[in-house]
């Protein structure tokens, strides 16, 4: 496919080093901003988690009440950490796979500044009570529109890269990223429309949006990263092009219809809910297809998972994607939903999605990308290892007990002979376990942030070899 001649865009095939040089400032800025919000979001998470079993903890201040800290935790993690870092990773992946320098660099840096300001303003708004009050959409509409607009501008850069690329075929990661950059602004725009102004209808829009934010924005970016890094680090092509195609269009077709499985038993008309349940079950197809594709690519090279920091995070993320998606399909069935809906089980499920899948994938991507952007190496193998285990053990300690607690809570709730207070009391040990897990996760994030600061500011000596846990294997 021919390439155009926009002055900003270098149309000649360029060396990777050149592309990374152009990507340096916009991508670093996006990732660094994301890490900042990760730390703030972790603090909010700890506060919310502790408050849940110790309600008097900092209970006298309105701006730190559970009902404000908890939504802000979600919003900073989703629209700060995961969206910013995700956008940075996505741009870098496009630059590599389309062999074209990132265009509009000053604009990208500019909107990232605005994006940070919007998040800051939005944080103050939520803590002081100016919330939109809709889960996943707590930022007031005006603030949200600014954020969506920032992502739209970055999306335009992505589209330009698609049209001015220097390769003929589109690698599967590209499909996912282009789709993500189209879907998120559409989602953000539609969800901000004032037409959904009656409560029941708004609930529908709410869960259509929230589920799609995960399914049509973070999931494609996460899968794009998996599709790029797994073959790259293992050093062999992706197993099957046909499966990649099926996986992508399957996700596009079915994920869009999933949202209403959050509304089983609600006053919304049953047949919409039934469509969503069916679509949720259909999701098994693209999920299994992607899992097989990734598994067949890694198979035989599992030692690489041991030695490459990137691959270890990415494979953890890819496996979590399979697990969380299949779990999601099961949760959408009426009989399961009857028990786990309205319980902590769903919160744990959401964290398998946003953390064990998306966040681990982003960590893995950062471990690969940052040395290439900075021409520097990670300072410490040991600290990366510590980060991995803190995150991995932390998220398991978070989700496994809380899902057990959630099922017990749901079963108790559905047994009218058990007083309501018992359904609350029985969850408390699991809520405490979550706080412990939160400490581990936060410790991991602090290590990660420290490593990022070190590599970006190039403190110390430039290490000689790329960071791998065994000298015989080389990441390229």
């Amino acid at each position: 496919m021919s390439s155009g001649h926009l002055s900003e865009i270098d149309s000649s095939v360029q060396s990777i080093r050149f592309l990374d040089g152009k990507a340096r400032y916009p991508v670093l800025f996006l990732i660094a901003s994301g890490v900042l919000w990760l730390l703030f979001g972790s603090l909010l998470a700890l506060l919310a988690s502790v408050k849940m079993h110790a309600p008097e903890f900092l209970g006298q201040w309105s701006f730190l009440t559970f009902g404000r800290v908890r939504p802000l935790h979600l919003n900073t993690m989703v629209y700060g950490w995961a969206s910013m870092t995700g956008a940075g990773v996505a741009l870098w992946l496009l630059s590599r796979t389309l062999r074209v320098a990132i265009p509009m660099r000053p604009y990208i840096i500019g909107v990232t500044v605005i994006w940070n300001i919007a998040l800051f303003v939005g944080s103050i708004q939520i803590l002081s009570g100016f919330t939109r009050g809709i889960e996943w959409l707590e930022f007031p509409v005006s603030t949200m529109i600014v954020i969506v607009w920032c992502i739209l501008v970055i999306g335009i850069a992505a589209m330009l890269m698609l049209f001015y690329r220097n390769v003929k075929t589109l690698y599967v990661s590209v499909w996912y990223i282009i789709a993500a950059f189209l879907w998120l602004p559409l989602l953000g725009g539609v969800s901000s429309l004032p037409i959904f102004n009656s409560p029941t209808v708004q609930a529908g829009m709410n869960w259509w949006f929230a589920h799609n934010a995960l399914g049509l924005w973070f999931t494609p970016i996460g899968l794009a990263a998996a599709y790029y890094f797994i073959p790259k680090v293992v050093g062999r092509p992706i197993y099957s092009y046909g499966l990649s195609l099926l996986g992508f269009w399957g996700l596009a077709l079915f994920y869009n219809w999933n949202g209403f499985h959050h509304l089983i038993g609600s006053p919304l008309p049953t047949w919409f809910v039934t469509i969503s349940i069916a679509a949720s079950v259909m999701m098994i197809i693209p999920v299994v297809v992607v899992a097989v594709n990734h598994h067949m690519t890694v198979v035989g090279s599992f030692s690489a998972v041991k030695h490459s920091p990137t691959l270890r995070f990415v494979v953890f993320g890819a496996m979590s994607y399979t697990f969380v998606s299949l779990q999601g399909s099961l949760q959408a069935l009426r009989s399961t939903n009857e028990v786990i809906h309205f319980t902590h089980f769903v919160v744990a499920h959401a964290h398998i999605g946003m953390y064990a899948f998306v966040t681990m994938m982003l960590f893995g991507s950062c471990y690969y990308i940052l040395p290439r952007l900075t021409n520097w190496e990670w300072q410490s193998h040991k600290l990366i290892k510590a980060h991995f285990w803190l995150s991995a053990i932390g998220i398991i300690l978070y989700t496994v007990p809380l899902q057990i607690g959630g099922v017990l809570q749901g079963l108790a709730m559905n047994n009218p002979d058990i007083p309501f207070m018992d359904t609350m009391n029985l969850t408390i040990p699991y809520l405490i376990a979550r706080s412990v897990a939160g400490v581990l996760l936060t410790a991991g994030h602090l290590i990660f942030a420290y490593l990022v600061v070190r590599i970006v500011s190039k403190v110390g000596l430039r290490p000689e070899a790329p960071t791998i846990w065994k000298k015989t294997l080389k990441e390229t």
Partner: protein
Amino acid sequence: MVRNWILLFGIIAVFAIAMVGLTILPKLVVDPRVEAVDYGNTFEIVQGHAIYVREGCIYCHSMQVRPEGFGADFERGWGRASEAEDYRNLTPHLLGTMRTGPDLSNIGSRQPSVDWHMIHLYQPRAVSEGSIMPPYPWLFEVVNETARPNREGLSLPEEYRIPGKKVIPTDEARYLVAFLLSLNQQVPGMED
């Protein structure tokens, strides 16, 4: 170039179809039912709804009763299955996703005592031992026993009293309780 456009078109088309299916269609089906009812929302109720939103009660309380036979909502006395008309046409919606605390669709008829609600909001553990619901002291004023002679303080249990002081609800507390008491599944023109 053609391949680019097919990709972009496909991506937007799958999105648009589902968007119409899950947002526009439900709107066309449900909205007329809600608009047909005159709820006569009072100022207090509307303000109370806003405070409920502001304090994030939704993160622990659902406001949707599941139909009989699906869960034990009915057996727990939380009311009949919720209908689109139950929400007084107030947005943001408060359907909720979590039941750390009980469903509140019908709290107005289950717990009609203003005093109980006031004490519970000021200090949940004063009426409900071991509750993990947060306290909302900023909806109340702590004044000297002798101040505001025409306002009575909350009748708190001994351990939560402050010597020489009394706790009186602010307007915000009154609005919030007015909203809670309005939650009783009595939709005008929909009596069954």
